[in-house]
């Protein structure tokens, strides 16, 4: 007999209000229905009342986690509309902040994913190291979130060389910690059992639903706006589009964690290469009549903005499409047929911008034993039993 389980709109596991109706037969999910709109504030409408230079501050508040992505996509759209040139130094600054944002967003997600499957250690660790990125962003832009760096034609503020150099040690630690996190997650037999083969999104479904970002890349589609529609400094940097063929939840975890490492690599290159002198703003006079499209690879996938101008100082129409809007409907392909317990992690594995607020365990190690050591030892023991020698990251790097 089919039963319906309502979840939400206010549910301890969700940070944002959404309302799910899971129809289940025994343990198996046979249908999912979603009600959204609790967060709908009407930003597209509001944007038509703001001037071109005010809109970045508004769209920064579309989503707090991608608070660089939306302004960036909007600025790309306006620059496309008015054929506005952006100085090179401004591009470097934009790219730098964008990549730092990706690191913090992916770490945030890794933590939440751990929490969703009841593994709060990952949650606490990932969020602890995420703080380092936020500190870095605060150093460079003055704010932990909502950096207010973007404006059509350039950026709002300078970044000084001393600050950039000051970022290096943090990046180094971050690299080590992300590698540790990657190994810890991919090495863990329990996590593997929980994630492997769960919630598979086949490639043709990913195409049909128009899935984006890590969700589609984990299904073997090498689409990445940074590579396909090069903006910013991505053409000059040495980096790779990460893809996986499996399409399951584990693949999505893997893609995100490896992307974090790529982003750290890019950030270091930017620090090396960024010129110290030069203008950061081309100060466009006005935006001519016309239309423009901006697509930016946000941490969750392509963020799409369309701007139409009639030559006045306000957009006539500003359409915003966030990546989750395309990624989320894939639940129709991934959730059905799975068990109820897996449904949460599958829904969360597209990173639908929601977060947990529920439990928090503070892990206090006894003074004489280092928790990290203990855990590494346990992993080593397990590996010996399983007969694996290399860490997962080493294997990927060997490829």
């Amino acid at each position: 007999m089919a039963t319906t389980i309502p979840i939400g709109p206010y549910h301890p596991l969700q940070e944002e209000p959404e309302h799910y109706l899971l129809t289940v037969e025994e343990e198996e999910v046979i249908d999912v229905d979603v009600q959204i709109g609790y967060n709908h504030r009407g930003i597209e409408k509001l944007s038509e009342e703001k001037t071109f230079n005010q809109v970045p501050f508004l769209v920064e508040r579309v989503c707090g986690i991608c608070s660089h992505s939306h302004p960036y996509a909007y600025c790309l759209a306006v620059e496309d509309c008015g054929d506005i040139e952006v100085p090179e130094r401004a591009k470097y600054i934009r790219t730098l902040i964008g990549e730092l944002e990706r690191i913090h967003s992916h770490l945030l997600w890794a933590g939440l994913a751990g929490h969703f499957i009841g593994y709060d250690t990952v949650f606490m660790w990932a969020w602890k190291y995420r703080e380092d990125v936020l500190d870095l962003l605060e150093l460079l832009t003055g704010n932990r979130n909502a950096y207010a760096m973007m404006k059509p034609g350039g950026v709002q503020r300078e970044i000084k060389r001393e600050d950039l150099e000051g970022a290096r040690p943090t990046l180094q630690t971050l690299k080590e910690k992300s590698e540790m996190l990657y190994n810890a997650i991919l090495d863990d037999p329990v996590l593997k059992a929980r994630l492997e083969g769960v919630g598979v999104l086949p490639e043709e479904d990913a195409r049909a639903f128009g899935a984006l970002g890590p969700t589609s890349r984990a299904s073997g589609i090498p689409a990445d706006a940074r590579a396909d529609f090069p903006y910013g400094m991505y053409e000059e940097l040495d980096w790779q589009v990460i893809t996986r063929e499996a399409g399951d939840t584990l693949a999505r975890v893997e893609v995100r964690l490896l992307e974090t490492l790529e982003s750290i690599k890019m950030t270091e290159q930017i620090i090396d290469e960024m010129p110290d002198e030069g203008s950061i703003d081309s100060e466009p006079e006005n935006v001519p009549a016309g239309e423009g499209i901006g697509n930016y690879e946000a941490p969750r996938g392509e963020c799409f903005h369309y701007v139409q101008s009639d030559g006045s100082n306000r957009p006539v129409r500003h359409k915003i499409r966030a990546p989750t809007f395309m990624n989320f409907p894939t639940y129709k392909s991934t959730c059905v047929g799975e068990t109820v317990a897996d449904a949460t992690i599958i829904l969360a594995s597209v990173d639908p911008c929601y977060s947990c607020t529920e439990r928090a365990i503070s892990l206090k190690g006894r003074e004489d034993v280092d928790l990290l050591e203990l855990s590494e030892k346990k992993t080593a023991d397990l590996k010996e039993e399983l007969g694996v020698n290399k860490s997962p990251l080493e294997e990927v790097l060997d490829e």
Partner: protein
Amino acid sequence: MNWKSWGISKSPWLYHVNTGSCNNCDIEIVDCLTPKFDVERFGGKLVGSPRHADVLMVTGPITRKSKPRFERVLEAAAKPFIVAAVGTCACSKGMFHDAYNCVGPVRKVTEAADEDIMVLNIPGCPPRPEAIIDGLVTGLDQLKEVKL
């Protein structure tokens, strides 16, 4: 101070209500729980149901669709409780002042529901975790002066 306000100010259990915020305030609230800030040191703890809560942490400018749900949360919460409006959106609607779909701010809705609900405003866009903790501690300190 009477025994009720004394009780709340000791170890506030928090329930988080998102009424259409941009997520930034919410992650900063969650940040408060993670190792760096760790509000559990002050006895603050996030709980899973409004019925267990002493403080409702409300974020967002209250959208039309979430308003009836928020009112139900207000009804369900165990009395007495206080409402902490976290973020400029919740305090005054901030950027979304003219948005057609936002009917807040929080104080307006709580006043319509019940005049006596105390609202604690923690402004900032988003307020940093330090500010949230500071706001809560200051607010709860002042609770000692009132009778709930």
